[in-house]
């Protein structure tokens, strides 16, 4: 186990390194000088050169990459003398637009995105797995058919269509809910909940369609296996067989998918946050992309890759915990 983990982590570090090199090359090898983007049209050549020097953009790309990575690990200092600006580890640079440290931007917006994603994850797991399991147990009934139909449509539905529909119905027409926004749950939990419920339902309901299809198929497969019949034959009540034996076997692949989904959740969060105008990490990164605010974009991409790689490892370890047949080696 320990050896496996060490190997996986080493491999993950190597992958993270490759991702960072590629991202860096793509974003900082662009001909348009970031210094130009940063200070806009009013800057003359001298001012641009000065900015470039301060940001270290006049150095060769390898040195720049080295400094960037050093900044993440140990922090770095931009510029020299009086103009020097200290950026503590983990330093991802400063926003070209507002000069705010990227780390601060992420710290400010990440809780919003975590709120959206975790809330949606709970809905999609409870609703999706629940629907899938029940329709597998009641295969062929009207409930099953309705659930299959809903999940079919849900799997083809898009956040950027479903979100506006919900907004139109519940906010603009019925006035039941306030316009979605983010309030810290520690300040005002009720407000946080009512403002977040639409993003949760949108993301959660659409994702639950996939979970419902998957868990229904898994449950059907498990129910046809010998050990379920054996458990029934030895006299265990139905409920016990389903809840203890079948559910555990059927849930393993769902845990995998949920873990990987969580790793890539930022993608879905980007669209959800844009639809509802919630200022999370996703919306911030879209705005940064449109502004060519490269440090912010770079920070988001690296963070997203980090999440994906971490979740991959966690899922593999979790898999072996849930399913003893899987040996890590």
């Amino acid at each position, binding site marked *: 186990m320990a050896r496996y983990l060490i190997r996986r982590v080493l491999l993950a570090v190597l992958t993270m390194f490759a991702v960072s090199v590629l991202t860096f090359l793509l974003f900082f090898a662009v001909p348009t000088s970031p210094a130009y983007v940063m200070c806009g049209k009013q800057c003359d050549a001298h001012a641009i050169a000065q900015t470039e020097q301060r940001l270290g953009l006049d150095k060769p790309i390898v040195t720049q990459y080295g400094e960037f990575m050093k900044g993440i690990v140990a922090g770095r200092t931009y510029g020299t003398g009086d103009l020097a600006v200290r950026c503590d580890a983990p330093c991802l640079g400063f926003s070209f637009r507002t000069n705010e440290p990227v780390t601060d931007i992420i710290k400010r917006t990440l809780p919003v995105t975590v709120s959206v994603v975790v809330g949606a994850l709970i809905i999609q797991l409870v609703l999706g797995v629940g629907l899938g399991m029940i329709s597998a147990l009641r295969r062929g009934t009207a409930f099953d058919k309705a659930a299959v139909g809903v999940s079919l449509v849900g799997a083809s539905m898009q956040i*950027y269509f479903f979100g506006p529909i919900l907004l139109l119905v519940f906010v603009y027409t019925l006035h039941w809910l306030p316009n979605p926004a983010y309030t810290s749950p520690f300040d005002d939990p009720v407000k946080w909940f009512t403002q977040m419920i639409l993003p949760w339902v949108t993301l959660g309901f659409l994702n639950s369609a996939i979970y419902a299809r998957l868990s229904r198929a898994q449950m059907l497969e498990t129910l046809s296996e010998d050990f379920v019949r054996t458990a029934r034959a030895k006299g265990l009540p139905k409920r016990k067989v389903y809840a203890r034996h079948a559910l555990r076997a059927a849930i393993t692949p769902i845990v995998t998918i949920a873990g990987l989904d969580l790793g890539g959740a930022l993608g879905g969060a980007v669209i959800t946050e844009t639809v509802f105008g919630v200022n999370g990490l996703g919306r911030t990164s879209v705005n940064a992309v449109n502004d060519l605010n490269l440090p912010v974009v770079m920070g988001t991409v690296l963070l997203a890759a980090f999440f994906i790689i971490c979740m991959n490892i966690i899922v593999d370890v979790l898999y072996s915990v849930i399913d003893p047949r899987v040996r890590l080696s």
Partner: protein
Amino acid sequence: MTQTPAGPHDFAEAPAGGLAVGEAPLGEPGEEVAAPSGTAIIGRSPGQLAWIRLKRDRVALVSGIVLLIMFVLAIAAPLISKLYGSNATDQHSDLLDTSGYPLGYLGGISGSHWLGLEPQLGRDVLMQLIYGMRTSLVIAFVSAIITVAVGIIIGIIAGYAGGIVDSVLNWIIDLVLAFPFFIFCLAAIPVVTDAVYGSRGDVSALFRVGLIIAVFACFSWTYPARLVRGQVLSLREREFVEAARAAGAGMGHILFRQLLPNIWAPILVVFSLNVPSFITGEAALSFLNIGVVEPTPDLGRMINNGTSFLQTDPFYTMVSGATILILVLAFNLFGDSVRDALDPKSSR
């Protein structure tokens, strides 16, 4: 077994006339019952069998017809535009009220503008939808074809070559999978556009479409590659490959003439899953203002434009959203049917 009455499924097990024909008689059930067991069983190729199963699937029929209509609409868009009397970029500002909303009900539906007009710009919604579908379908199909082609080539090479080549290719696949696909698309498209066009502005529509396709292909070939690799790994030790090798066949012949025809079914399934996911991916990018640029009509951007008028003219958003939904739903249903037809044992 031979005494049982001739139900259509029993033929499969009965090696009538010594001909083991797989599931051949699954053909037309009515025909089978009518024909006495004396008639010869027709040998059918797996492809023909799949086609027969697909033809009998009602969901496949309906979704197939919907797709066909959409294809025809998209292909014949210029012709339809001529017959219909307006195109996707004309601005009918005379039909808008002073604040830029279409006159009349439901977004300005009228005899000459069947689905109304776009708020502010006054462009015809129906023509925008048809041309937008064209954009979606072109991007999705080209991306899917490139994705699958690259995946096949890399997968076959990795699977057949084995050893160090396989390890390296596998690591590259792992690496690409670690990239946050959507975030990276989002970030790469404006940055690359900027790198090519700089501050000149005017991005050509063709360049942007090509870039979207390239980015999609760059990050999606991994799945078909993995799949093909796995299939090739199990196939390469089989006798027919050995026979081909013994007969002196070259590497290219073995790879593309012997191995490839045996893995078409899973490849087709991957393709059918890829197309709708690229349609939604492209629409999502355009929704975030990062996809296709104006004035090329695009479904995702229509929704994005529509959200600003959600309270005053919801019809515009609803129509464009519904079009994407129908398109993707039809593709998904058809894809499911194709998968069932190719692999009847699979239970969804």
